[in-house]
């Protein structure tokens, strides 16, 4: 395996469409729930332990070889918002494209073929990490980091927040992200034996509600 492949995959410039998604930050900013770096930190911490943990476990389980179809169904059940399911599938389809160009593999080809409208992004992320020769924990880190880096970057643009403050938020979350990655991998190992139903189902009601609210806006900067 190549550890450096993790840097390629986790790079914010990896061309898989993430830049157009705020991870719920645009809705939270408009609702007045994020107005500062402190609010951003609170938002990111909540997202890390809910949607982030679920994404991390899904991605790690895909690396371990839990069937992508099972994981995709588990992701559907853990994503009640149709707007978020749509966004996750669009991002999954965009990632499959970049992944197949970067790490050609029969499993990625099969994923693209079996999910023409896109599989959930964390599932694709896991299959990609597997194709790149990465470990389950690498995929979990990638998913968890994206769950907080997306909102941080978006908030810099939405609030003209000082980018140094936003980066400070991400750095402060690092120790929690380490623990969440371990939890995600442990859960993924359970799922290997017990099935995808054993994966965490942590939810943030306002992430789902905000996504539905956001999807109804006629004018917005971010896709989700």
């Amino acid at each position, binding site marked *: 395996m190549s550890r450096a492949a993790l840097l390629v995959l986790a790079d914010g410039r990896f061309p898989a469409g993430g830049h157009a998604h705020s991870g719920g930050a645009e809705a939270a900013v408009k609702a007045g729930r994020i107005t500062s770096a402190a609010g951003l930190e609170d*938002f990111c911490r*909540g997202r890390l332990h809910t949607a982030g943990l679920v994404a991390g476990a899904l991605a790690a389980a895909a690396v371990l070889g839990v069937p992508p179809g099972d994981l995709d169904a588990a992701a*559907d059940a853990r994503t*009640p918002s149709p707007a978020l399911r749509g966004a996750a599938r669009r991002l999954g389809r965009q990632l499959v494209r970049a992944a197949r160009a970067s790490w050609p593999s029969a499993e990625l080809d099969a994923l693209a073929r079996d999910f023409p409208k896109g599989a959930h992004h964390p599932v694709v992320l896991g299959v990609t990490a597997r194709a790149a020769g990465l470990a389950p924990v690498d995929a979990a880190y990638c998913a968890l980091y994206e769950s907080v880096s997306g909102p941080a970057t978006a908030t810099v643009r939405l609030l003209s927040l000082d980018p140094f403050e936003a980066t400070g938020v991400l750095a402060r979350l690092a120790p929690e992200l380490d623990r969440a990655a371990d939890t995600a991998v442990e859960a993924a190992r359970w799922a290997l034996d017990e099935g995808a139903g054993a994966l965490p189902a942590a*939810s943030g009601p306002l992430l789902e*509600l905000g996504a539905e609210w956001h999807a109804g806006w006629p004018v917005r900067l971010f896709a989700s």
Partner: protein
Amino acid sequence: MTAAGVRAHARIVARADGRGGTALPVLDGAGPLAPRRTRASGDGARVMLVGAMSGPLGGDRFRVEARVEEGARLSVGSAAATLALPGQAKGEARYAVRLDVARGAELHWLPEQLISAAGSDLSVTTRAEVAAGARLVLREEQVLGRVGEEPGRLTSRLTVRVAGRTVLDQELRCGPGAPGGWDGPAVLAGHRSVGQLVVVRPEFAERPAEARTLGECAALMPLAGPAVLVSAVAPDALALRRVLDEALALLG
């Protein structure tokens, strides 16, 4: 500390009586979980869960099972809110709800709120198995703390399967000791009431419900299957109930 906590188990079985009505061949339970048959409306049976003691307390293990057999109709409510309190026994209290709805059957599971009092530690798991062609209305409401107090620790997982496929699996963790950010802008943002209303109807397979928002803090969301979830957060239990009722009325 040796107190072991209370074990309580209630069982309800609803069966079509062959004359267009619903019989209750099993209606077991006592103490904190006593099911009572009440006057029915229409051809369904109606049961009220009457708690003879407060609870659950730390270390308690409660379990409620309801099975609605083919063609039967059952509606279950509770006489009062369930209050989770700190107990003498160590460890968390557990409350398991298992619902099973057979083909052609209908269950309305509409208990009153669960109130997570300061210092309590409760884990609730609700699992509904709904057969193809069955109908379910399930409401859960969590109130974080009595008026003016901090909430206890609450973990609540809700899993709904329809025709063997999981259409909803959601866990909310909040209160002291819950993972960070639970009261922040991604999860509850200071709201002290949170609710879920799940409606499963076979006709949603053909004509899925339309997604819609009810203000910025509530939404009706079609799930990946013949079901919808209404999810809401609200400042208090009354406002929460109002928005869940409004959403249910929208579904017709």
